[in-house]
């Protein structure tokens, strides 16, 4: 479950460079790169290193501009990677991740195609539920609806809404959202991301 949460935090951002960059945009991109590599990494040691790398980049970004949505969002993503690397600290890390996402959403709700609300939704619907963790499907559904309101064309927002609806018992609403996500994804040029969104939508539609 924690792996899923951390994967959910992967922003759809351009990739790039290694030694610590100096601009906010590049630091944000460095965090995105670490997140993407972590998604495909099975070695826990390397995942730990990537989490540390993302965390260093997030700290540098926040030192440069503590109010920038890119830095606040990057900090949340870095905390997601730490959760994946250190599951025993999951509860504390996920709570901090949610705080960082609240700040990022306040700074720029449209950042990364409504990423703060979308990632918040996924954390809330996938994390262990109260009282064991910060999971809260009702609040997750509200966050997913916000993401879709802000960026209704972006398939991951519709996928997050579908998942939230399924978790809160609205199977028909979930199917409808999966179908809309598939339609939106099909209208996009073919990329690895688009293929993954289509797969997720199809899997959601096949679930009973």
């Amino acid at each position, binding site marked *: *479950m924690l792996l899923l949460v951390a994967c959910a935090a992967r922003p759809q951002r351009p990739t790039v460079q290694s030694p610590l960059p100096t601009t906010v945009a590049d630091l944000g991109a460095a965090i995105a790169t670490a997140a993407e590599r972590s998604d495909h990494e099975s070695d826990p040691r390397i995942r730990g290193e990537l989490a540390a790398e993302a965390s260093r980049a997030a700290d540098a970004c926040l030192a440069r501009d503590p109010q920038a949505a890119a830095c606040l969002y990057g900090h949340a993503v870095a905390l997601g990677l730490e959760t994946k690397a250190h599951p025993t600290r999951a509860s504390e890390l996920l709570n901090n991740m949610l705080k960082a996402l609240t700040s990022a959403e306040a700074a720029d709700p449209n950042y990364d195609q409504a990423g703060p609300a979308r990632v918040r939704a996924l954390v809330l619907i996938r994390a*262990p*539920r*109260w*009282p*064991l963790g910060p999971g*809260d*499907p*009702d609040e997750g559904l509200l966050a997913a609806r916000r993401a879709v309101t802000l960026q209704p064309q972006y398939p991951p927002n519709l996928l997050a809404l579908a998942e939230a609806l399924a978790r*809160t018992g609205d199977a028909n609403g979930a199917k409808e959202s999966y179908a809309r996500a598939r339609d939106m994804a099909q209208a996009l040029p073919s990329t690895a991301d688009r293929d993954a969104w289509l797969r997720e939508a199809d899997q959601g539609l096949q679930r009973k």
Partner: protein
Amino acid sequence: MATLLAGAVATLVFCAPGYPGGTGDAKPLLDQFASAAVAAAGWPPGSLTAVYDPTEEGGLAKLASPDAALAFVPYPFYVEHAAQLHLAPLVQADMVDTGPEERWTLVAKTGRVTSAASMSGYTILSVAGYAPEFVRHSALQGWTLPADVKIESTGQILSALRRVASGEKVAALLDQTQAAALPTLPFAKELESVRQSPPLPVAIIAVVDSRLPAPRAHALQEGLLKLGHTAGAAETLAPLRLKGFVLPRLPARPAAP
């Protein structure tokens, strides 16, 4: 009633309705637990397998299988199904958070529920809602609930508590871990504990329908009682939130009114 032959592979069915976790997530932890239990009992390696089901129906279906010799179930499940499944308690779980027993707490909107009679027309929501016998006669023993009180199962206790706080005719029956966390909720002041159970067992391992020969059952009981005290056991038990096991101390069941 077919007793498994000595040396045959027995299955331990874990079933925890209402609690999070999927069959796939649980599998490695259960395999580890089964290996540790077998080693502690001196049974042949591989002679115990473990399966998990998060639903009451699924758990009952698995327990109906002739190789299902053992059940590891929450006490509410035990109360509800012990007679039907011919469950004979072997050990009682000693949990990390609560110990071997816990109290259940009925929570209502502040000032609304003053007696059992004032619950007329209410719905009680709980992770144990699948076990109405447990709710009425164990958790709320001493209270005679009006006949129109409904008891429903929910895995979304936070949603249930929001409904309570909003003033719906709903009360929530919480386990000890949930009740202890109530003050962390932002709407905690809207909620009031109106009834608490005596200490009740948390979970039980039981032999199903005499499907385990007595000597094997005894060896397993001895092994499980030692398990919490053996080197390395903590790594096996902690992911299941277990400290170890104690002999069963089941409360006398109050007679149904």
